[in-house]
């Protein structure tokens, strides 16, 4: 036995140990920041967090009001994000199925479509807000739940499409061939086989987009408006949680600032709840997935 291989083994082991420490530190930092964010928000919101916060609309205006709650923003955000996510889904699923079952991976249409989706994904949400605002003016629409939904749907669409596209492109050709060889059309294979096979991934994509949509402030700033009331129609302006946080945090009054943290806590909890529900549904959908 010579010394050189031993030395190199020692070096390899050292590298291994060093990397393990680095990985543990990274994981620790990520986990710690998450806990710190949650902890700060919850701790700061405790003074303002009570039942009427969840069940009442603000009294004395959303900007200066120290009474009442943020029901307007909770309902507004949920309606807006659900509507936008539904709209984005109706656009995304057919697009992704088209790309993955009618178009070859290297076709010009597919390559350019994926490129544009990537570009759209990177567009800042304030740009969507500005674009939505222009469209509203052209259509003669007021700042409203509907205008907000349409804008947020545009913001969510590329995220959802690309996320679903990633899992859809992993469907093995043999699976599509198996369906085709039974006499299925591409449409039948797409909706009966590919959708089932990728159901958990589709769910993840939808949740990702929903999270982005419900948490975004800039895109709804001009398009959904803000109001003290719970929206009663699609053409009414709608309050949203991110904007509630923005406005309340912008006041000089500590009591109102506390309410901003309560709003943030509610928003975080909604996203958490949706994620948990999504995970449960997704686990159920995994049952039939072919490995």
């Amino acid at each position, binding site marked *: 036995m010579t010394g050189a291989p031993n030395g190199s083994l020692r070096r390899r082991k050292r590298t291994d140990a060093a990397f393990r420490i680095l990985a543990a530190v990274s994981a620790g930092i990520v986990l710690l920041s998450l806990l710190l964010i949650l902890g700060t928000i919850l701790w700061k919101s405790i003074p303002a967090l009570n039942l009427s916060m969840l069940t009442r609309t603000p009294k004395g205006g959303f900007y200066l009001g120290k009474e009442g709650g943020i029901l307007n923003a909770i309902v507004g955000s949920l309606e807006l994000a659900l509507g936008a996510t539904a709209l984005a889904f109706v656009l995304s699923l057919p697009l992704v199925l088209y790309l993955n079952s009618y178009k*070859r*991976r*290297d076709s010009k249409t597919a390559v350019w479509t994926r490129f544009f989706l990537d570009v759209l994904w990177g567009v800042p949400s304030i740009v969507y807000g500005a674009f939505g605002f222009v469209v509203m003016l052209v259509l003669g629409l007021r700042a409203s739940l509907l205008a907000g939904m349409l804008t947020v749907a545009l913001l969510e669409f590329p995220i959802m499409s690309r996320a679903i596209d990633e899992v859809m492109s992993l469907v*093995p*050709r*043999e*699976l*599509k*061939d*198996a*369906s*085709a*060889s*039974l*006499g*299925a*059309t591409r449409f*039948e294979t797409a909706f*009966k*086989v590919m959708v*089932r*096979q990728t159901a958990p991934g589709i769910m993840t994509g939808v949740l990702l987009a929903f999270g982005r949509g419900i948490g975004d402030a800039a895109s709804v700033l001009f398009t959904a408006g803000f109001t003290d009331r719970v929206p009663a129609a699609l053409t009414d302006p709608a309050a949203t949680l991110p904007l509630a946080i923005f406005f309340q945090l912008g006041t000089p009054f500590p009591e109102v600032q506390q309410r901003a943290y309560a709003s943030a806590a509610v928003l975080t909890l909604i996203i958490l709840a949706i994620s948990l529900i999504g995970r449960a549904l997704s686990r159920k959908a995994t*049952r*039939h*997935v*072919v*490995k």
Partner: protein
Amino acid sequence: MNGETPISIRGLSVYYGSLQVLKDVNLDIPARQITVIIGPSGCGKTTLLKSLNRLLDTVEGTRVRGSVILDGEDIYAPRTEVTRIRKKMGLLSQKPQVLPMSIFENVAYGPRLHGLRSKKALEERVAHYLRVAGLWDEVKDRLREPASTLSVGQQQRLCLARGLAVEPEIILGDEPTSALDPRSSQNVERRLLELKRDYTVVVVTHILRQARRIADHLAFLYLGELVEHGPAAEVFAAPKDPRTKAYLTGEIS
């Protein structure tokens, strides 16, 4: 032999890009017999099989010249309805590929596509073909479970039942036992031997012993060229072409 030929391959050439994988193949497939296509890997066996139900359509950059006549109709004619062609053939792939649904739904999938709606008729159809595929006793109590929970050998027989359930005339097997253990392979071979009473069977294999066990008609493909074909007993006993002889004796593989 009754002389029927449900499939006639005429002057078939297939190109992947600029690579020619099948060279002017002419072959008649006899009815209700097992035709086995043998040859070393990469010789175009699978391509030939996939050309029979136009699964080649889904492979990028493929060009097909020549014709495949199925029941008197050229399947590569522009007006031919591809789903109707595929309904006439059940395919067993190398690796069994179950659909992401329950055992029952896997078999019911094809019949449903082709318009069978009645629940009772579907149940009967599913049970019948699971029996034909020799799987019924093993799955009759768990029809609602995901098909992916079956063993690989069971999955291949499920694929057989699924293919038969659309009531095809022809069964295509693309090395259908290559992913299976010996027992399951034997089981699948036995099914194929039973099925040739009612169906025309075309099987691709690189296992010579399997070809000896099941083939009525043998075709030897080498480097994209159909070197020799004929009744299996004749080809095995007295190959005419030196390349066939070399392959059968294991000199080329």
